[in-house]
């Protein structure tokens, strides 16, 4: 946890965006180990593959396209600070209402997860209960997630390919 905090602070503090990106990758990797410690292997897998791997590569390429250093901000933006403090205190206030860590009488433990854990193997023949829940019991949610990813891809494609065409046209005008 301390490592996560330190790397997070470094990622914000450093002005060099490439270094920040690499540190964010390290941050994700440490988060993945924390998920493993908490026995959430599937989440750890995703965190290591997406957070530490692909996101780092995508961010590096985005930096390569735009610019390496952060824009300097001289005056203090009070509105932003106020917003951050408000949201942060609201979130901390929210955690007070959460049940204790590992509390057996928490709603997450007694509501529906015992049913999944006891019946998912017999009903889906999938020994991994996480996959059974994601793909079968919550199949509609996963369909939504796939649609979100698909929409993101289509959006990036629409934005970037249109830009290139326009730039080509502008170049053509200059050459004429």
């Amino acid at each position, binding site marked *: 946890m301390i490592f996560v905090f330190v790397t997070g602070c470094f990622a914000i503090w450093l002005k060099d965006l490439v270094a920040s990106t690499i540190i964010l990758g390290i941050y994700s990797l440490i988060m993945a180990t924390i998920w493993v410690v908490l026995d959430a292997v599937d989440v750890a897998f*995703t965190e290591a593959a997406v957070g530490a791997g692909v996101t780092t590569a995508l961010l590096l390429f985005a930096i390569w396209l735009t610019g390496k250093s952060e824009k300097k901000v001289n005056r203090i933006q009070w509105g932003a600070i106020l917003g951050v403090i408000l949201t942060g205190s609201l979130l901390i206030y929210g955690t007070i209402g959460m049940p204790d860590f590992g509390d057996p009488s928490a709603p997450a433990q007694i509501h529906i997860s015992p049913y999944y854990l006891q019946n998912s193997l017999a009903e889906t023949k999938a020994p991994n209960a996480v996959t059974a829940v994601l793909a*079968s019991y919550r199949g509609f949610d996963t369909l939504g997630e796939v649609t979100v990813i698909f929409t993101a891809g289509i959006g990036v494609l629409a934005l970037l390919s249109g830009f290139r065409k326009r730039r080509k046209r502008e170049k053509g005008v200059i050459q004429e």
Partner: protein
Amino acid sequence: MKNYLILRVITKLLIPFILLFGLYVQMHGDYGPGGGFQAGVIFASAFILYAIVFDVRIARKVMPMWLLTILSCVGVLLYCGVGIATLIYGGNFLEYGVLSSIPSSGNHIGILIIEIGVGIAVAAVILLIFFSLAGRR
């Protein structure tokens, strides 16, 4: 990165194993950790590694943009198609139990197919984003 001999050789050695590991995670998702999403990302990362170490243009020849666009649609449509197939078989949308005579094995088949759909869609979309970012200069 034409001059880094060690990088090139190691990448060439690693890529088949990364692809194999992606397929393993895909097909083994219902027994161990993993599934379509993780498998798609691992599969895409093999191509990203290839594109970084060798050249984006060569990687694009292996996986052209039109193919990626089609593949991302195929992934989502495979998922929806399973839902519609269950409708045709007389169940609810995405109620996989009706795919087989035994509901539990029908569930298993449904999970396998939609995981493949998720894997194809995720891999194609990540490569699509990567290539459209990397091919800009």
